């Protein structure tokens, strides 16, 4: 029986690994369980942008992400969904109104000349802002690390609020250093990243204006060329870049509507800025097509009820298996508990977000995981009744049930595939959890149950046919 001992050790190792994963990885709870807001935004087409291309969508995503960062929500998620939608998850946000308002507006891109005599001041203010932004990143990190510590959290949130106020003040201070201008993102035709020289690690961002914008831009650059003052590029009122214009353009300004923004960019940062500009320049409105907000304590109630139901259901199944199938039933129960542990660890490993339907899928898969065992044990009983030896019966029980187990699980997996490919949001979550459940259940039924059962019948005192099929004697 050395073969099965090897399997038993492998299962034990797997169990330890799964336990380690469960202890180490915090569960990702869906918004329906932890409370929060989920918004689905649909990108609208306009006369200027008649079609939503992936570029447009990713530009909008970048703008939305920036705006949410501005809201200061920890662990916010912005994902693209389908061809023209964005899914925004804001955990802990119970008032989605503010979020909705901020997200819906079109990003405003503005080019403004710096006011004379503010050079030193700008530098100081930008340093202050950089410091504040650094602080904010640090605080957000602390916030997510202390998610389970309400006392520390309150303290961090107070600091965050203060930081946000200071940032707003600093932003205002910077904006005051620039003169109003008419050159907006609406006049931008294109923005893309380009290396300074072929193969160079330094990149610039090239922007191209429409005729009206080109004229305004020429005037603007002429005004500040060689003065050391800069053109402020504002996205949503936040200064994202402040390039200066060299003296050579003092005569005419930069004409032709093309401009290069240089500032020691890498390929990555240049591309980011191009996307921001492009995104900021896009006058595409967003519409909130779906908004689901769940209060934090409503989610808690649901978790409790569902877990309660799940545990009760599982216990009933365990009891039934032992009562009906005796020793194999007990072994199936062990396999079933292993199944629950492995599946949960797999959820954590795959980063499955646990939602209410997901938990339902999990509970359901426990019921279905029994099926493989039932098929095998029924087969074993039949073989025993035909008078075969215990070992042969168990063996052919596994062999003969395999085709049924495979076929029936593959058909369920096909349904899961259809759900995953065509479903949205939580429907997909359900499909993933069910599919993982089916995969793990095949593994535990065919490997764990099998090894345990063969190990059990290798122990002489357990080798009693009546422990496998209660009424065997009377049947014979």
């Amino acid at each position, binding site marked *: 029986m050395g073969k099965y001992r090897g399997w038993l050790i492998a299962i034990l190792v797997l169990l330890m690994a799964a336990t380690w994963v469960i202890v180490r990885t915090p569960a990702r709870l869906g918004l329906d369980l932890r*409370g929060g807001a989920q918004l689905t935004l649909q990108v609208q087409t306009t006369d200027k942008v008649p079609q939503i291309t992936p570029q447009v969508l990713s530009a909008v995503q970048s703008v939305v992400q920036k705006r949410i960062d501005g809201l200061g929500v920890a662990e916010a998620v912005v994902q693209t969904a389908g061809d023209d939608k964005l899914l925004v998850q804001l955990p802990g946000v119970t008032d989605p109104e503010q979020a909705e308002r901020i997200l819906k507006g079109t990003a405003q891109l503005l080019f403004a000349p710096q006011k004379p005599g503010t050079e030193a001041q700008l530098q100081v203010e930008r340093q202050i802002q950089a410091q504040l932004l650094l602080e904010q990143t640090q605080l957000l990190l602390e916030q997510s690390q202390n998610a389970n510590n309400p006392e520390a959290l309150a303290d961090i949130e107070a600091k965050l609020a203060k930081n946000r106020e200071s940032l707003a003040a600093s932003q205002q201070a910077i904006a005051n250093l620039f003169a109003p201008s008419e050159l907006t993102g609406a006049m931008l035709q294109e923005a893309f990243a380009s290396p300074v020289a072929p193969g160079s690690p330094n990149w610039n961002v090239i922007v191209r204006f429409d005729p009206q914008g080109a004229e305004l831009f020429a005037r603007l650059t002429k005004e500040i060329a060689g003065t050391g003052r800069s053109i402020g590029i504002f996205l949503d009122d936040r200064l994202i870049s402040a390039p200066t214009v060299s003296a050579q353009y003092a005569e005419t300004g930069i004409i032709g509507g093309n401009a290069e923004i240089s500032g020691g960019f890498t390929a990555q940062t240049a591309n980011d800025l191009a996307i921001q500009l492009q995104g900021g320049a896009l006058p595409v409105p967003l519409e909130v097509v779906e908004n689901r907000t769940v209060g934090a304590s409503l989610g808690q109630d649901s978790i409790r009820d569902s877990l309660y139901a799940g545990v009760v259901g599982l216990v009933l199944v365990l009891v039934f*298996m032992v009562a009906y199938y005796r020793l194999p039933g007990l072994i199936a129960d062990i396999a079933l508990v292993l199944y629950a542990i492995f599946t949960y660890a797999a959820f954590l490993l795959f980063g499955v977000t646990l939602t209410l339907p997901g938990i339902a899928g999990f509970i359901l898969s426990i019921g279905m995981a029994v099926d493989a065992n039932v098929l095998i044990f029924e087969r074993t009983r039949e073989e025993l009744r035909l008078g075969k030896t215990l070992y042969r019966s168990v063996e052919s029980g596994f062999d003969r049930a395999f085709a049924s187990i495979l076929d029936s699980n593959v058909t*369920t997996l096909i349904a899961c595939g*259809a759900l995953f490919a065509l479903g949205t949001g939580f429907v997909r979550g359900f499909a993933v959890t069910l599919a993982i459940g089916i995969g793990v259940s095949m593994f535990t039924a065919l490997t764990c149950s099998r090894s345990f059962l063969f190990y059990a019948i290798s122990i002489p005192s357990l080798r009693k046919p009546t422990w496998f099929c209660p009424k065997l004697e009377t049947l014979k």
Partner: protein
Amino acid sequence: MSFSVNRQRSLWWGISLVVILSGLMAMAISSVSLGSPLRLGLDFIGGTRLQFELACSTTNTCKQPIDIDVVRRILNQEGLGNSSLQVIDQYGIGIRTIPLGVEQRTRLSSALTQELGAFNPAQTQIETVGPTLGGQILRSGLLALLVAFIGITIYLTLRFQFDYAFFALVALFHDVLLTAGIFAILGLTLGVEIDSLFIVALLTIIGFSVNDTVVIYDRVRETLKLNPDLNIKEVVDQAVVQTLGRSINTTLTTLLPLVTIFIFGGDTLRFFALALIIGFVTGAYSSIFVASTLLAWWRDRQPTPTPSPVT
């Protein structure tokens, strides 16, 4: 051989037909009165659902329960007179309206706060689904159903034969129709609405129903291979009896957690669990009494014996 599923097949088919026909009738009535075969929920037709609970209910300091007439009056003022309205546990309200924008919603909730008192944000639930998105969810759900049908048929044709696959599909339709029919009846009588979870339930039922059918077919195939000369009716009867224990036990173990969810789980999952309970029971029924008897009937009619399928 004490039990023959084929002997009384007209009875089994009759039972299925009666239930399916009453379901279809409910769908027809529902189509006329509600505009769709099933009572569609927020997920599909779009709208806003608001659920509030008074902040004072957690501290037990509420002076009086919510007066539904006051709420109704506010809704009328906002031009939302057609909304459905429900008072939950005296101090909570559920409102279902046409899709509301941020401004409308804010106005409504502040008007309500003014008249009724502050709400507890931890108990607040807001759902808005745009009408276009609702349509998309329904379409993608139905498409998923269709794709699952096709995928399963192809797989079963490869593993068994086309007639097996076809009758498994008939059993599938049977289960889906029956579950949908019962929900149409529930929609008419109790006002039960279907949401995206219902589509999920239908797809799970499909997986489970075929599951059951495949186990019996597998037995038919095996018995045919061992006894090629046996009459198909007898083969099917044997296969059904041999797998009966498994069918009953598996259905039972699957139903146990579902029933616990139905009883103890939260409101969100209650009707999801019910759909699955109905679907799984009919799935077990159709595998035993519909898919297998139809296969026996069909093969019995074939003039020349078809060669037994290869595993």
